[in-house]
């Protein structure tokens, strides 16, 4: 069976799997998909999810173009929470749009 991949391709992108990145520490008003708790934290690109309509534009009735590359980013829990009580090996992953990421 050869259905096309469910992922939307993102041939033009800034980061690749394994790249170290930091989430921007920025607090603009409005609809954002980058939770506050992850802003300013450093992680590693786990996968490239594809290019998706920008939800920060869709939320206000725009068409979401140009599409934004969406990444799955892996963080050590000890990086996310200063007082994390669990083992060092525990991790957290979430999705971050490219314009929220910087090289780290």
């Amino acid at each position, binding site marked *: 069976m050869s259905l096309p991949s*469910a992922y939307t391709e993102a041939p033009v992108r800034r980061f690749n799997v394994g790249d170290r990145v930091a989430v921007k520490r920025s607090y603009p008003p409005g609809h954002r998909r980058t939770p506050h708790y992850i802003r300013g934290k450093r992680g590693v690109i786990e996968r490239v*999810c594809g290019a998706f309509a920008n*939800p920060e534009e869709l939320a206000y009735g725009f068409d979401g173009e140009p599409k934004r590359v*969406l990444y799955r980013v892996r963080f050590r829990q000890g990086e996310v929470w200063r007082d994390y009580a669990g083992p060092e090996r*525990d991790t957290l*992953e979430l*999705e971050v749009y490219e314009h929220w990421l910087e090289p780290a």
Partner: protein
Amino acid sequence: MKPHDHSHDRSFDDGPASEYEIMSRAMQELLIERGVITAEEVRNRMEQFDADFPYRGPRVIAHAWTDRAFKARLLADGKRACAEFGIDLEADRLIAVENTPELHNVIVCTLCSCYPRALLGMPPTWYKSENYRRRVVREPRAVLAEFGTRLPEQVAVRVHDSNADMRYVVVPMRPAGTEGWSEDQLARIITRDSLVGVTLPKI
């Protein structure tokens, strides 16, 4: 109206009801009181939601347990593997994450209540609760323990925040003692909560 013909399932949400929740309940009660809608219509609509989003996850996971190649395809591209199995996830892109002896996965949506509805149906109340969403990201082991899931230190816990365009499902480990079981038998022990990652399938 009778005081208790709707549910108050707040078992995993110890905070007070939100403003929107109170407004929504007040609106529903008023509409029923004024005869605009009936409680039965509300119930029917909720049943319609369930019919629109059938609960099909256990079939997919049972198949993954018995067919190694299918499991590999499911982990590579969840939406495509489900389509192959006859399940159209529509808009949902699905990432299946596999539990192993070294790694346990658990899913949450901290921003709202994103959930793989096309595969698992409507989300349970606790999944949408502020308590679960706020705590499972920062103290996952304590929250899992409250679900009766105590994991040894050597098993890493990975929390997946379903905060944007992807949806997630956990592929639990097949319990020992299920060798030779049919997919139907296996599907019966694969609970919804085990596919979100808060419990483990048990015989």
